[in-house]
């Protein structure tokens, strides 16, 4: 047992070193812009860059629309499958796994060919259409995570009883989903939302191939042309991802643990 503990420490410390050294080195590197002293110059330049602000804002807005679209597509479907169509569950679960099978670059390639400006549905014929297509593409990327988060949330509430109670009180379907089900799975939905945000915010492939002024292509451009700013951007990106994951962890403490209808 003694040697087991020794090896456990060795593994932990080696692992910690592999993950800690690049991050520490990146922090150090990002502070070196001014010769001889540590400074936040790289951060100041990045944060003050008008292109940083506009592309970051663009990606934040795209992420918000992605989350809204994801919720609109996933919540009614997951709810309905629990309530009425459990036999469709395997089909839906299979579809939500597809984005893990089909690489993002393949999906966006399909969009470019199918929804080009000469197609019957010319998303790429206009600026707004291309923005919409980017949001749609992000929603497909987030589909596996969003679906699983919402489904886990629904598992902890008694969907049927809540629905019947709301119906007895005269609620319509919109009211049931919007004012009864959604508030009950809000924490699960928010977990999915923050994960979506973390995935979408720096996404490069889709934004670049759809030619959108998003944060990912901006990162690529800075990475190819600057020395110290990329390190600062890496730290900022890491902080954003960390923030999203912490929010998910904090939220999970508020999530109901008990299940009335485990299945």
């Amino acid at each position, binding site marked *: 047992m003694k040697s087991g*503990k020794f090896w456990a420490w060795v593994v932990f410390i080696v*692992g910690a070193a592999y993950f800690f050294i*690049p991050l520490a080195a*990146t922090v150090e*590197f990002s502070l070196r812009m001014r010769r001889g002293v540590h400074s936040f110059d790289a951060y100041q330049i990045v944060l003050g860059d008008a292109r940083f602000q506009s592309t970051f804002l663009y990606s934040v807005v795209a992420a918000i629309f992605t989350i809204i679209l994801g919720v609109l597509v996933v919540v009614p479907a997951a709810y309905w499958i629990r309530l009425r169509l459990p036999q469709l569950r395997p*089909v839906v679960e299979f579809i939500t796994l597809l984005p893990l099978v089909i*690489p993002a670059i393949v999906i966006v390639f399909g969009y470019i060919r199918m929804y080009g400006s000469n197609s019957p549905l010319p998303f790429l014929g206009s600026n707004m259409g291309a923005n919409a297509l980017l949001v749609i593409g992000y929603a497909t990327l987030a589909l596996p995570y969003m679906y699983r988060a919402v489904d886990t949330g629904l598992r902890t509430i008694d969907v049927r009883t809540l629905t019947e109670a709301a119906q007895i009180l005269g609620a319509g379907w919109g009211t049931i989903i919007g004012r009864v089900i959604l508030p009950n799975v809000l924490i699960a939905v928010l977990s999915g939302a923050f994960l979506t945000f973390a995935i979408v915010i720096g996404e490069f492939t889709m934004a670049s191939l759809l030619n959108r002024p998003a944060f*990912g292509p901006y990162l690529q451009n800075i990475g190819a042309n600057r020395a110290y700013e990329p390190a600062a951007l890496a730290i900022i990106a890491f902080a954003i991802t960390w923030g999203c994951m912490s929010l998910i962890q904090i939220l999970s403490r508020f999530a109901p643990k008990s299940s009335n209808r485990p299945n």
Partner: protein
Amino acid sequence: MTDLTLSNRTIASKPAPPNEATAFRLPTQWIGVAPFFIFALMFLILPTIYLVIGAFQNSDGQLTFDNILQLVSDPSISSSYWVSIKISFWSAIIGAFAGLAIAIAIVRGGLPSWTRSATLTFSGVASNFAGLPLAFAFLATLGRVGIVTTLLRDVLNINIYAMGFNFLTTSGLIAVYLFFQIPLMVVIIVPAIDGLKKEWGEAAATLGATQAQYWRMVVIPVIWPSFLGTVILLFANAFGAIATAYAFAGPALNIVPIKLYSQINGDVLHNPQLGYAIAFGMIVITGLANVFYIWFRTRSERWLK
């Protein structure tokens, strides 16, 4: 039967027919799932089918296998597949074993409890920290003027670049990909190790099993399917990754996703149909991997309830 007339063609094409035995039914049976299926069909399934069909057509729309054959016969394409498979395979294998070792260390190694929560939190972050920022972090660390590179050179007099180190080699990219592969393994495998019931260990000990026998005959068989499944997930994860490699070398690096990226951007292969074939090849490889994944996953879930 009223609901059948209302079902749209998306639903009608699905294999599972509506169950006659549902408790109460309205003609709105399918409305709740309709947005999901329409969305999936339009933006996930049809675009993919479009590419797959294109892979088997020539530019006049006639059936041909030339595009697929060219994946094998064109050395620049077949080598890019080969490099991608090698990188994905080894980063998945190494990442899986390293992740498993870390998971066992924090769950079963008798370490203080903060190591577990710290590792899990960090793994959640690092498994999602990929793409361009990851490349930037490694360039700042091990790039030509990176912190660790210069430290090694100035303090220990080791020039890693003179020794042949390069991010653009297969092993260089594997080392970088491990930064998100290992944490992903940790995130997925820790619940599986948690699922090992204490009673099994006690039962084994009661029957006189040594620690080694307990591991060989109980732990490994139980963890094995979910471990193997995760290896496959890691493989697909690395196979589709593009941004990290693109940040190191732009379009110069010869891996499949970058090849496809250049083809989409500028038709560098001078044959649009060939792009479809490359995409098709990627789907086939990750698809095969995931078929195994799902298979192993269902096998492991039987044990870990």
